[in-house]
């Protein structure tokens, strides 16, 4: 018995380690190093790493296709590195994701990846997925320099003398952010970038100009790439604003493609977001049958077909009168009766004497009818309550 107890005690792995926070699962646990083998943690880890893989993929795009970064887009071009727990902001960088590329190629980042995977992940296979090799970085740097040189030379050829400030700024130095203060709004500022420059935004990329090295296949998702690349290719031969060429949206080929694509996208968007309104109204609504009949009559009238108009001089709508109880048909009958009596009386009076005029028709009807018992008005609810009591 004692041996069994000791065995049981040995078996109990009462290793309750201190509470620690799991970055992947986003909760505190006291499971210690065993936590990373739990199936829930494994699932969350794979999702976590996939998310970061997509971010790295975006950075790799800019690695293969270096693009100038405008100061306005600096704030949008930022990446959070989950392994190093730091935000990489492209302050003062001239090319998109340049700091991110340098960071992902650094040895410190490599070290942090290994540490992360050792702590959270069972396998260390995927280290290379999250870092950029030095060879790739070197290629990228060469591409950037080539890009910068080409751009500077093209600027000198096309721009006029008044834009000497632009010549200076467009060289491969870092462009300082130029904030337009409200006082300067009246002054005309020189362009920071040539109109041939790529205008980049994270949400959508539109490329204008003749310096595209990008193939359509390399464009990231969510980019209106297909149309823009075609437009840029066409502008290669046609020209640009400075050469007096027509804008790409007036180009008939592009206009067709553009409008066609847009209309398709618009249609899909509309179909997704706005549900199609059903024209079927509630068949039990008040006067539904009348409404349907009337619609048919109106359509026939529009077509020019003769319709039997039910709007006689004596037609009156369905109405429940104040002092009548019963159905609305009863109140209508009663009104017709009153009307007939009134007509008869007026005719008889007019034949007797033209000067006598009956002002109050109610008084005549009062005389001919039985004396009415005047009672105060009691609402239906009050009557019910009284009867209930």
């Amino acid at each position, binding site marked *: 018995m004692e041996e069994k107890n000791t065995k049981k005690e040995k078996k109990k792995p009462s290793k309750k380690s201190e509470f620690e926070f799991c970055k992947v699962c986003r909760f505190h646990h006291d499971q210690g190093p065993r936590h990373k083998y739990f199936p829930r943690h494994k699932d969350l880890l794979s999702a976590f790493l996939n998310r970061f893989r997509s971010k790295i993929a975006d950075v790799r795009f800019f690695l293969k296709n270096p693009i100038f970064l405008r100061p306005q887009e600096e704030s949008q071009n930022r990446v959070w590195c989950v392994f190093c727990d730091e935000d990489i902001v492209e302050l003062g960088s001239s090319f998109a994701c340049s700091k991110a590329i340098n960071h992902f190629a650094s040895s410190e980042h490599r070290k942090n990846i290994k540490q992360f995977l050792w702590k959270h992940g069972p396998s260390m296979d995927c280290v290379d997925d999250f870092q950029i090799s030095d060879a790739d970085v070197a290629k990228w740097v060469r591409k950037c320099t080539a890009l910068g040189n080409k751009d500077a030379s093209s600027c000198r050829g096309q721009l006029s003398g008044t834009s000497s400030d632009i010549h200076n700024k467009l060289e491969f130095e870092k462009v300082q952010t130029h904030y337009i203060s409200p006082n300067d709004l009246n002054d005309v500022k020189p362009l920071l970038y040539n109109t041939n420059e790529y205008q980049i935004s994270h949400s959508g990329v539109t490329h204008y100009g003749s310096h595209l090295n990008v193939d359509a296949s390399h464009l990231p998702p969510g980019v209106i790439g297909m149309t823009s690349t075609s437009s840029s290719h066409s502008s290669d031969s046609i020209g640009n604003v400075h050469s007096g060429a027509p804008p790409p949206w007036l180009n008939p080929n592009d206009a067709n493609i553009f409008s066609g694509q847009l209309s398709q996208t618009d249609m899909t968007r509309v179909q997704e977001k706005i549900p199609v309104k059903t024209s079927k109204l509630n068949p039990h609504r*008040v*006067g539904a049958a009348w*409404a349907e009949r009337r619609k048919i009559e109106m359509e026939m009238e529009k077509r020019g077909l003769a319709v039997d108009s039910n709007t006689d001089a004596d037609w009156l709508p369905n109405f429940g009168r104040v002092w009548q109880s019963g159905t609305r048909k009863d109140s209508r009958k009663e009104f017709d009766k009153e009307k007939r009596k009134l007509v008869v009386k007026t005719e008889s009076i007019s034949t007797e004497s033209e000067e006598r005029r009956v002002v109050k028709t109610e008084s005549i009807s009062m005389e001919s009818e039985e004396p009415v018992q005047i009672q105060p008005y009691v609402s239906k609810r009050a009557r019910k309550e009284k009867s209930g009591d």
Partner: protein
Amino acid sequence: MESVLLPTLTKKEEIDRIINNTIDKVLVLRFGRTSDENCLLLDDILEKSARDVSKFATVALVDVDSDQVQVYVNYFDITLFPSTVFFFNAHHMKLDSGTADHTKWVGKFHEKQDFIDVVEVIFRGAMKGKMIVHCPLPPERIPKYQLLYKDV
């Protein structure tokens, strides 16, 4: 003084036509005279809210001084002015506002929103098949009046 936005009806045929042509919308008929102060206040509110309710209601004014309209004044038992009667698909809609007369709204509205709320409630009730609806306004905003049977 004719409203720019709201049609003023002086003949029975006009009233019949507007009742017959208003389909799947609430028809608000105001019976009153332009010389009456309360009527003018009500008209002001109706004109201002006509556009807001235009998708589910049509508003029209009826001049009670016209001879041809007297048949409707008698039929609807209108003794106090201004009175507002509601229709939906040529069927009269009743409004229980705690007053003696459920067949119409007597008096003016406190503000634009009150009128819009009332019309909305009538529309919702009508679309559900109800011919009488409860007034959504608090009692202090409902004009009080004494309803006399044949001036007694």
